[in-house]
């Protein structure tokens, strides 16, 4: 015990936090200001721009700092017996608050630029910096032809900084700064190729839809300030679990915070921006719209867990669970018919985020975080694999023009295979463990409806991911004859390989041993019940069977002759055809939003601009001017130019003053 404590150097959490957050920020500023002047250098006949190298090294630096922090925390935990010996010891768990400076002090209400280092934030920082480093490395290869190369890496670094600020925020305001920062970077990266109208529109859409959620988040913060008097997460959670917030207030606050999460994490009804966000560069989609930013909502809900738990009759948690489950199912249904490779992955992301919220809604916060981490691995992997495919096929995204690519792109194909098996839930890949944990938690709590939805979604997931994989990598080659696909350069396949490895073994972090993820996070997130013994094995077996049947169904439909015939024979007008058509049209949600919100909003704006503003407000303003002019026209006649008029007014003044003197009114009285 003493030995392990002495081996670990005294934690310089201030320095580590500053390194993790501020280095990417500094890099972003540097690249924005000077990135254009940076040159390139050659490695193995390939031009590699310095801007990318700087960004990768910065993120690597942050990753190393995060690892140091993690090792330190684990060491302290082990030394103090907070974990290990078959369970977590909440009392001995340690968290650290890094106080950078006082941000604002208004009366008794103080907010500091404080950062919270605990088990949860460190784990997520590892994911963000680790995956971020890999994606930045990948981006060097993927973006090397782009004229705005340096700007891309500046945004990427800025994103990393903001995301880390979000994670480490000790109070909701610091978290909110990061929250808005990642939103901004998301906007900038979706609209990175702003010459394309689709990209510019998608960026605006993402920004505006996110703004709805952010507004809700802000309202939640206001309510919590009013109820608790502090924005410090620890204070709020302590007040919530200590019963100082009434159940009703807690419900409203929790639902408002969840509203923010719904926007950021693309849940029903605000999920519509994420598929469109695929207009951005693919590595950015991998990092922001799959692995990290969109999971911020999951993280936030887990972080504010006590507020949700304090809700009256578990209403908030029930809402979270059902929104998550329905989103998972809804997005999976759309993903089944989508032909754009990136959009399939986007809907898949929405669906998987739904799983995470389902876990949160069941109170299984660490289960949600577990799925968040494994999902970050395999979804980032698949996005980058899709990017690799697009790279090879001259930016083709239509799956109907792909096929058999495993032969020409062996590494991409192999790593994508790993990701596919992971998300489908095949043992022992990462996705199996985390998804199984969520479904098991649902079963254990008797939420059989949620469990059923989750299981059916798992079937759909296995089906549509298999459809994607089989269409792209198996079967005959279908691409245009004048395109010559090739394996990607090492900067692109090395990250793929690393993430592929993590997709395989990532589930191991929650295998039953002392320092497993759940135990590690227990001091922050609490524990949740999972079934034991035979039930656990049966549930896992059922999930596995479902996954296998989904894959088998896809294999039958897309790789066998009879399947192809079956698809061709699909009767037009049958219920299945109607369902598929509706799914292909994304259930017309965008159209409904346009009709119910966008068009009335536009009409209202036009009315405001041309009626209220041009006639009403301008009328008042111009009317005030006209009134003054009219009055002046009358008053100026006093200024007649006749001296005797002035003298008469003079006399009038004297008379008035004397009258006041006599009547004793005014100052003379």
């Amino acid at each position: 015990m003493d030995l392990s404590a002495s081996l670990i150097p005294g934690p310089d959490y201030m320095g580590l936090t500053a390194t993790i957050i501020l280095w990417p920020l500094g890099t972003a500023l540097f690249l924005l200001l000077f990135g254009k002047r940076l040159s390139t250098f050659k490695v193995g006949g390939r031009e590699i721009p310095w801007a990318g190298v700087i960004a990768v090294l910065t993120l690597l630096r942050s990753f190393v700092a995060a690892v140091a922090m993690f090792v330190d925390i684990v060491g302290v935990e082990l030394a103090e017996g907070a974990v290990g010996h078959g369970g977590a010891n909440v009392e001995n768990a340690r968290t650290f608050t890094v106080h950078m400076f006082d941000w604002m002090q208004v009366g008794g209400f103080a907010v500091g630029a404080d950062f919270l280092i605990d088990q949860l934030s460190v784990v997520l920082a590892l994911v963000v910096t680790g995956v971020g480093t890999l994606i930045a490395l990948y981006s060097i290869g993927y973006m090397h032809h782009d004229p705005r190369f340096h700007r891309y890496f500046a945004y990427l670094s800025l994103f990393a900084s903001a995301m880390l600020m979000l994670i480490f925020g000790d109070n909701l305001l610091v978290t909110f700064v990061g929250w808005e920062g990642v939103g901004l970077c998301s906007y900038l990266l979706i609209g990175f190729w702003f010459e394309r109208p689709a990209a510019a529109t998608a960026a605006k859409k993402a920004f505006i839809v996110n703004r709805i959620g952010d507004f809700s988040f802000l309202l939640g913060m206001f309510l919590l300030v009013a109820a608790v008097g502090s924005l410090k997460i620890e204070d709020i959670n302590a007040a919530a679990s200590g019963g100082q917030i009434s159940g009703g207030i807690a419900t409203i606050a929790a639902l408002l915070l969840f509203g923010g999460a719904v926007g950021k994490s693309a849940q029903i009804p605000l999920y519509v921006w994420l598929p469109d966000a695929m207009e951005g560069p693919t590595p950015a989609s991998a990092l922001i719209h799959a692995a990290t930013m969109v999971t911020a909502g999951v993280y936030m809900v887990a972080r504010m867990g006590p507020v949700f738990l304090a809700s009256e009759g578990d209403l908030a948690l029930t809402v979270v669970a059902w929104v998550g489950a329905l989103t998972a199912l809804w997005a999976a249904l759309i993903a089944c018919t989508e032909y754009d490779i990136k959009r399939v992955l986007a809907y898949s992301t929405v669906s998987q985020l739904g799983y995470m919220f389902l876990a949160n809604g069941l109170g299984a916060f660490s289960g949600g975080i577990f799925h968040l981490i494994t999902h970050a691995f395999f979804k980032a992997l698949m996005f980058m694999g899709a990017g690799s495919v697009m790279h090879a096929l001259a930016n083709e995204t239509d799956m109907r023009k792909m096929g058999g690519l495993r032969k020409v792109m062996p590494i991409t194909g192999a790593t994508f295979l790993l990701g596919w098996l992971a998300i489908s839930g095949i043992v022992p890949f990462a996705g199996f463990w985390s998804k199984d944990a969520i479904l098991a938690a649902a079963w254990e709590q008797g939420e059989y409806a949620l469990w059923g939805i989750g299981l059916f979604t798992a079937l759909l997931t296995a089906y549509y991911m298999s459809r994607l994989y089989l269409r792209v990598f198996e079967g005959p080659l279908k691409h245009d004859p004048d395109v010559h696909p090739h394996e990607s350069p090492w900067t692109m396949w090395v990250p793929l390989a690393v993430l592929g490895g993590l997709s395989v073994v990532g589930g191991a972090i929650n295998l039953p041993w002392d320092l497993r993820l759940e135990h590690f996070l227990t001091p922050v997130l609490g524990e949740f019940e999972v079934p034991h013994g035979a039930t656990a094995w049966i549930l896992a077996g059922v999930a596995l069977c479902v996954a296998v049947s989904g894959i088998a169904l896809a294999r039958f439909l897309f790789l066998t002759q009879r399947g192809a015939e079956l698809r061709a024979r699909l009767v037009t007008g049958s219920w299945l055809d109607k369902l598929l058509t509706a799914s292909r049209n994304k259930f017309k949600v965008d159209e409904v939003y346009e009709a119910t919100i966008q068009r009335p909003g536009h009409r209202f704006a036009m009315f405001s601009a041309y009626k209220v503003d041009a006639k009403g407000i301008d009328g008042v303003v111009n009317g005030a001017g006209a009134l003054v002019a009219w009055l002046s026209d009358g008053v100026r006649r006093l200024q007649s130019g006749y001296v005797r008029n002035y003298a008469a007014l003079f006399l009038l003044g004297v008379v008035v003053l004397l009258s006041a003197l006599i009547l004793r009114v005014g100052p003379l009285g």
Partner: protein
Amino acid sequence: MSEVPPGFYLALAGLMFTIGAVGALVRRNAIVIFMFVELMLNAVNLAFVTFARMRGNLDGQVLVFFVLVVAAAEVVVGLAIIVSIFRRRASADVDDVNLLKW
């Protein structure tokens, strides 16, 4: 010598002042207007002298002296202006000089 109450003198001063004011308003000849101003100043002088008597000291009488000096200076300058205007416009009517307006 104090049989006439001072109020009568002050009333006389007030009436003369009023006549001077009204005259200055109704007459148009600049020189005549000036004369009414002089009349008003004289009325004020009467008030000063009466105040001196009422208070039993000579400050009021001394003030008359100052009013006199100011009136003299004013008359000199005022008449010079009238002469100057008359040279240009051949008129002493104040209503003819009304350009300084909106």
